[in-house]
């Protein structure tokens, strides 16, 4: 069943490469992001948030959802590190069965 993942990945790669053709060029002034989103952020920051630093107002206010996800990722990664590095009490009496019945399927 492992070889099945290769054609799926190749199809996905082909789809991504095809979709790349539809993106606007790098730093294109006529790109949708540069025609109205960026000017709005730059012009309205002081009026909307009273924050002179545009980076902060974009990071925490306009795109706060993104930053929330970022913080969750950091916290989850830290907890995962703890789970890997944590010293567990070894309990040899409770042996883990190596062969499950799911291998037969």
């Amino acid at each position: 069943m492992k070889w099945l993942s290769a054609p799926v990945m190749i199809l996905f790669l082909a789809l991504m490469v095809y979709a790349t053709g539809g993106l606007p060029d790098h730093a294109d002034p006529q790109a949708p992001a540069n025609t109205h989103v960026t000017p709005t952020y730059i012009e309205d920051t002081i009026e909307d948030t009273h924050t002179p630093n545009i980076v902060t107002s974009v990071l925490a206010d306009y795109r706060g959802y993104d930053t929330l996800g970022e913080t969750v990722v950091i916290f989850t990664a830290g907890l995962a590190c703890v789970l890997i590095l944590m010293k567990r009490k070894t309990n040899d009496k409770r042996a883990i069965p190596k062969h499950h019945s799911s291998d037969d399927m």
Partner: protein
Amino acid sequence: MIKERYQSIIVQTICSLLIPFIQLFALYVIFHGHYGPGGGFQGGVLLAVSVILQRLYLGKEVSYQRFSPKLAPVFGAIGMLIFGLSGLIPMVFGGSFLDYAYLPIFWVHGAELRSLGILIVEIGIGLTVFGTLVLIFDNLIGERW
């Protein structure tokens, strides 16, 4: 693993002089994010560095008394809670998710309230980063606590 304090008068003096200034600078970086480079992530890392430096030069017993390793995940979770609640509470008061203008701080209005909301969120981010980094360091040391 780091059992006793580092046996060098120079290292001890320099570290004990540096740590309060590192903490002060960390708070400055968090609160100055509105006006210059900085913010919660950078300030949280600086706070964590001040605790990690204590762990390195003071040894286990004294530094665990000053900042218990059990507190680190609590700080991280409190930071996440501050961020999550500052997103959810505006929804209760009629705004959308993370719309700080609807936070229930009634003596501040409009843009000022959004500025205050950014500060609250930055403090939450700082606490999360601080707790997470100290937690990772304490577990890398491999001490059973």
